[in-house]
Structure formats: C-alpha cells, structure tokens
C-alpha cells in the first residue's frame, strides 16, 4: 500500500486541507459527520478493494491504527 498516496486521498475524502494528516494524526471518527465515514469506507473499498466495517473503523484512534487494520485485512483477505 502506498501510504503517502492513501493519506492524501484520505485528506480529500474528509475535506481536510492537503497535507494536514500524517500517520500520527488522531482519527476521531465519533466526531465526524456520518457522511465523512461513508466517504472513507467508500475510498478504502475503491482504492484498496477492502471492505472495512464502520465499527472496526471507529476503533482506530489514529491514521496509523487505520493502516494496521487495512494491512491486517490485506493479509487475511476481505471478510464476507
């Protein structure tokens, strides 16, 4: 996975300023608008072919946690 490119797309999906997210940035999806989470789930599906559940996503506290989740899914294959 190209982490730099993915973080850039994550910024776009969340309508954050370009370059404002790094791997250490906190992810507080509880505070997001529900549409933001939909955008990110769709981005992950489209870009990586992985389907992350909203509940799994909410457990990610940082962009780094999200990478760990995505890489784990890539290793074991998508669920369902």
């Amino acid at each position, binding site marked *: 996975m190209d982490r730099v490119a993915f973080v850039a797309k994550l910024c776009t999906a969340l309508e954050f300023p370009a370059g404002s997210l790094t791997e250490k940035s906190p992810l507080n999806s509880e505070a997001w608008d529900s*549409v933001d989470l939909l955008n990110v789930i769709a981005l992950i599906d*489209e870009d990586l072919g992985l389907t992350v559940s*909203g509940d799994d996503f909410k457990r990610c506290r940082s962009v780094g946690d999200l990478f760990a989740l995505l890489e784990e899914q890539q290793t074991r294959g998508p669920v369902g």
Partner: protein
Amino acid sequence: MPTRAAIKAITSYFPQSRLTNQELASQLGNWTAEEIHQKTGVSSRAIAGPEECASDLGVAAARRLFESGACRAEDVDFLLFCTQSPDYALPATACLVQRQLGLRTDSGAIDFNQGCSGFVYGLTLAKGLIETGAARSVLLITAETYSKWIHPQDRSVRTIFGDGAAATLIAGVEADQDLIGPFVLGTDGSGSKNLIVPVSGARCRRTAQTGVASERESGNWRSDENLYMNGPEILTFTLRTVPKAVRGLIERWQRPLEDVDLFVFHQASRFMLERLRDKMALPAEKFWIDMEQCANTVSATIPIALETAAAQGRLASGSRVMLVGFGVGYSWAATMVKWL
C-alpha cells in the same frame, strides 16, 4: 407453451405533501439545501399526511392501475402487500386494501414485511402463485411511509427517505422462456440491529421513556420508537453483498453481463448507487439513478424507477432488466425481468 409470470403494468402514487431541501435545511441547521442535494441526490420528497397511511398510498396506486385499463379490480386473484409501516399490527393491511379496492372476497390477500428487497421478493411470490396455477393475476403493492418512524431532527434518515407506493400487475402469459427470473435471494439477520425501529412490536413494549428523544451520534436526535440507521454498516453490507449477488445472478442467467439492457437497483442513495456502479464497472448509460424528486421509498423504489424508465422510453418490448433490492434485514434479492 407454458404459462409464465410477467410484469404487465406498474403505476405509482405519491402523497401530495412535499418536503424540500430548503425546508429541511431551515429545520435541521448544519447542512445547506445544496449540501443535502450533494450528499443524497434528492431535491424533494413526498411525505404522507398525519391521517395518510400505507394502505391509502397503496390503494391510490392501485386505482391508477385500474384506471389505466391494465386490469379490473375483479380480475385480481391475489393481493401481495409489502410494507414496514402497516396501518395496524393486526389485521393485515392487505385485508383493509381488499375492501377499499373492492377486490373479490374469494381472492387471496397477505402482507409481507420486507423493506428494500421487498419488490423482488414480491416477484418471487407472484411467480410462484402464477406458475403453479394458484392465481392468474397478482396485484403486488409496495407501499411505504417510513416518515412515520423518523424523528424530525435525525438528518441521517430524514434527508434520504420519502413516502410512496407502487402497484404492479403480474399475470401469466404464454411464453417459451422465463419473463421473470432466475433469482438470487439472501438473508443475514446479524445486520438486523443496523436498520431498525427498536420499540415497534412485541419484543420491546412502549413505556413513558421509550418515546423520549435524546441526542445520538453526529448530533442526530431520536427516541427508541424512531427509525435508526447505522449508515456506515449498511454501506459495508451493500458493498460486500450486492456485487456477489449480481455475479451469482449472471451465472444463473447464463448470459453475459453485456446482454443486460438496464440495471435498476434499489434507489438507496445516489452515493451508494454510484459506489456500486463503479465497483462493478457497470456502464453509466445502463445504470438507473433517479431519486431527485422521490428519494428512497424503500420497497417502492424499483417499481417507481421501472415506471419512470418506461415512460422515458428507456425500456422497450424485449428489454432485459436486472433488478437488485438490498437493505433492512439484512435482506437482498436480485432477478432478471424481460419487459413485455
């Protein structure tokens, strides 16, 4: 030649009262009318009046069908009524509708409780009734008033759902091949908690507390007597399930995907439909998205879309249409229809 079930006619009906994005924006705050449109693909939706129930919408849609000359009330052998907002817990709304429409008392009439997959499930039932000889003409009414369940300050659902109904006549015709079918059906009740009205039946009874609204996720308000939708989980379910259902249907159909003339999926939201279309690389010109004026009317979206597509000349005799319903339950169903 054997008798095969076929869709003969479809008519829809919407309540007169409409709710625009401008009205929603002024009531909900937070989102502008333009943002609501951008996120949902909806400009306005019809909302049933306080005294207007699923039976009223269904009866109005069926009366339009009779007025069109497609059939007479006395021709109907079986009424299938699909709703998740019935007039009463009992009796079946179908019995009320039989009376209001003046259907024969020796006709069958049942309700079935399904949401977004309801129309395609209705086709499976109608086909079974017709091709076993149990009925010659089946009236399938899909009528929904989700607005009855929605809290006014829950923008996650208030922006995307609208009320409406469709009446579909399914009858037998002599044909050497299926005009409805094959089918792919599916159910996964593990998702039941993600689209639910928690206090709406015998499991959880109403109390003084259950009707009290409180602020929930993303600033939305609702009580346990209101509709709850976990949008992210519904999207995940859809992205996982619908492409598999489409592949399964194509395998059973034994023809290439290119032979499909029009894809009419449940009109859940423009966002979700565009994601599905792109994921499956379906051609945009064959993929129906039209919820601008009616929003997501649950089990009525597919027949409403078919009626509109036919009126706009997008369906001709012999057109092969793929229908896919998916959502609350979880429940999903897909089939092929050959347009008469």
